[in-house]
């Protein structure tokens, strides 16, 4: 039995006028014509396309919006690869629902740094009257509201959001909902919503369970209960039992477009390795740290002690001796070292302090000067970032920092400064999330993340829809160090930089990948063993990518 509703607003309004329909017939006719224009004559079209004068979406974006509305019924994980315009897809879906009168009240939860960007885009590109949340009153005042997830999860905002139903809820950077025990996840679970869009390029970061948690927000039971999911789909924490079956189960709730398959005409990528030879002092420090880490790694693994500090140290030493200083100091201060360990760490600290010059820094300055255009320098470490800023300033190069911890206003400000005033943006990964920097086409990877997905996230900041120039990527590689292996693996084996890896992150979490890399590096007895083990890892990446292709095809 279909619910039948007769509205009586017109009758009430007529009665208020004493039953007399006074008015101009020309306006009556004009109103009818306007109504006719906004009438939805078909179930299947995307009506909003005719009312978006400021936007020409790409075909894959239109297809995604259609699929989410018509096949996934308005609850979906939008997981396109970086740079394909997931925001546009979400905006199209929102606009279509508004045009069709199916959404009036919508909430868009995003990282604080993206609130203004989302609000601006919805207004300018989609003609949606969206407002940025500013205070407690915003929740009830505006129909379409953009707010920071971190603000929303705190009272009194949380209570305000939970007290009203939303026709549509959009969560950007939805990988922040990966853990069902967090307040983020619980907030989204508790909000009353009709349609739900979760937007992220990396639905899995560490563990297959994260994917389960995201899907359960959209459609509880789609992947069964946790036990069933583990039994049917999980081989190890980081790999699925049967990628094709998992992919099939996900197809009811997830859309993922790949760059290689989209019709978007991306500009070319030019990738170059910049080989560097360490100075004698740097080499001495590197060798000392590496042998310390290797010995300690084995010892601690046997005694089941944490190896986290060691991993960090080994990675930092590839970045800069300056970055390693902080970790060495921390190890000493925490006082958990045996006397002999403490002595060795102390020695390493002095070695690091005594390094007189910095090969990488000199090279980066030389490159920036020769580029004579905007450059983004990526590093993993805040200490390196600070040091780089200082050294660039010494060479009269204007640079600004960009970090994940910055507040919304500061991020916008830094982006503006970079666009208008500075030549260089020194960014850490977290800082780069969700920010679009298409006006720049030069990237220097001062150090490299040890996993392909995070590398792609970096490049995706500039190599995305809207980039009009070829993108130049320069990867620093210090000879005879772990970095050399990493660069070779990412570039030659996985061909990370020139052809984008597709579904890798669904299959393989970045953190898990990093751990595997580190194990390969530290447990190997010599160079050839390192090479062989990294080769196996690269093959695994390629295999999972291929199996996903097959999954797509079936």
């Amino acid at each position, binding site marked *: 039995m279909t619910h*039948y*509703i007769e509205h009586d607003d017109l009758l009430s309004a007529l009665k208020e006028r004493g039953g007399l329909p006074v008015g101009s017939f020309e306006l009556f006719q004009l109103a009818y014509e306007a109504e006719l224009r906004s009438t939805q004559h078909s179930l299947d079209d995307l009506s909003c396309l005719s009312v978006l004068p400021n936007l020409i979406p790409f075909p894959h974006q239109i297809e995604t919006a259609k699929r989410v509305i018509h096949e996934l019924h308005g609850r979906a994980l939008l997981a396109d690869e970086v740079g394909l315009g997931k925001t546009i897809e979400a905006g199209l879906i929102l606009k279509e629902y508004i045009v069709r009168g199916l959404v009036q009240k919508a909430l868009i939860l995003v990282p604080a740094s993206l609130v203004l960007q989302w609000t601006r885009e919805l207004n300018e590109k989609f003609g949606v009257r969206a407002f940025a949340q500013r205070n407690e009153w915003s929740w009830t005042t505006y129909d379409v509201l953009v707010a920071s997830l971190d603000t929303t999860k705190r009272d009194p905002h949380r209570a305000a959001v939970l007290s009203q139903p939303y026709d549509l809820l959009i969560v950007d950077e939805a990988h922040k909902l990966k853990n069902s025990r967090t307040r983020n996840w619980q907030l989204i679970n508790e909000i009353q919503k009709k349609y739900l869009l979760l937007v992220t390029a990396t639905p899995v970061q560490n563990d297959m369970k994260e994917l389960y948690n995201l899907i359960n927000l959209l459609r509880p039971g789609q992947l069964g209960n946790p036990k069933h999911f583990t039994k049917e789909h999980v081989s190890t924490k980081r790999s699925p039992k049967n990628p094709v079956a998992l992919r099939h189960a996900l197809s009811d709730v997830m859309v993922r477009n790949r760059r290689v398959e989209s019709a978007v005409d991306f500009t070319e990528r030019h990738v170059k390795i910049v080989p560097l030879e360490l100075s004698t002092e740097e080499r001495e420090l590197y060798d000392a740290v590496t042998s310390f880490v290797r010995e300690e790694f084995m010892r601690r693994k046997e005694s089941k002690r944490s190896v986290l500090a060691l991993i960090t140290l080994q990675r930092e030493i590839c970045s800069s001796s300056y970055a390693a200083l902080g970790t060495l100091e921390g190890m000493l201060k925490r006082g958990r070292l045996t006397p002999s360990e403490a002595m060795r760490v102390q020695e390493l600290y002095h070695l690091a302090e005594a390094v007189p010059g910095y090969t990488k820094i000199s090279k980066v300055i030389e490159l920036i000067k020769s580029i004579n255009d905007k450059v983004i320098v990526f590093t993993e470490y805040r200490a390196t970032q600070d040091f780089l800023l200082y050294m660039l300033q010494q060479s009269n190069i204007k640079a600004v920092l960009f970090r994940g911890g910055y507040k919304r206003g500061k991020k916008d400000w830094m982006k503006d400064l970079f666009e208008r005033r500075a030549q260089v943006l020194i960014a850490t990964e977290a800082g780069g999330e969700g920010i679009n920097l298409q006006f720049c086409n030069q990237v220097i990877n001062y150090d490299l993340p040890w996993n392909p997905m995070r590398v792609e996230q970096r490049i995706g900041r500039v190599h995305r829809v809207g980039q009009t120039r070829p993108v130049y990527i320069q990867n620093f590689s210090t000879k005879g160090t772990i970095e050399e292996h990493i660069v070779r693996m990412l570039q030659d084996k996985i061909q990370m930089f020139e052809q984008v890896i597709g579904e890798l992150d669904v299959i393989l979490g970045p953190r898990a990948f990093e751990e595997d890399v580190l194990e390969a590096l530290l447990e190997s007895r010599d160079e050839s063993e390192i090479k062989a083990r990294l080769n196996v890892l690269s093959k695994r990446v390629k295999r999972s990518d291929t199996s996903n292709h097959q999954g797509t095809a079936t």
Partner: protein
Amino acid sequence: MPSESQALMDWAIRFFDSVNAVRHPSSPNSLRVQLPREIDKELTDRPFFWMWAEAMNENPPETILHLQFDDAPLPEDLPQDVQKERIALGCYRMLRMEASAKKRGAFAVAYEQGAVLHPYVVFVVKISFVSDRRIDFLESYAISLRDQRVYPDAMTRLARKKLMSSRSPQSQIMSLPLDVDALFQIMFQCTKMDISRKDGMWAVEARKRLTDELSRLENYYKSMENETLETNEVQQKSMAGEYELRKAETIWRFEPKIEVRPLQFALVYLATAPGP
């Protein structure tokens, strides 16, 4: 200029003329209009400005808009007080103009020319089939007050007639009582008949989707109940609450609904019955 833009501009000209906005000379494919205060309030959302102006007894000059309907660059040399903007379907200004027309055009009285005029009421009604998707049908009916005969597709029929906002002195009106409740009942009967003639497959599919989704939810939460049997009561209660919430959301999203919304009502006096 494309025909769609031309149609939009023609509509805008008629709208501004109907609301007595003064039209200034302008370049081809554009309109320059001076807005009466009440229209200005409807076309630009600035309630606080008007509140302030009225409280302070201010008399701000009337807004002049330069609306361009083609892709040519907006003119640079406009007087300072003229606001310029490009108009396309779905842009903010167009939406406001349409909303204003819908508000002002909800009711009307009109007359045909002729010796004896008979009264008809005209309804414009939107019928919507809603589940997680939506399709609309805009219907119009003319009902004769003399014999209650119903003429569907009334707006198309009336478009062929010349209707005026005032009665010619030569015309004689056959006055009949207007029982609006009864007329609305007749109109709702008409919509029901129209609905029964439309394909109802959408509702069958929506109902099936709803049933499937609810049964998936039931299975999931039952299996979770078994999992949490050993856990504490609080956890079970929260799971039950979550189940209720998900059920309500699912019904909200998928349940097939038919909405009938009368939008416009006019009284028209016609010399002859609405044509074919």
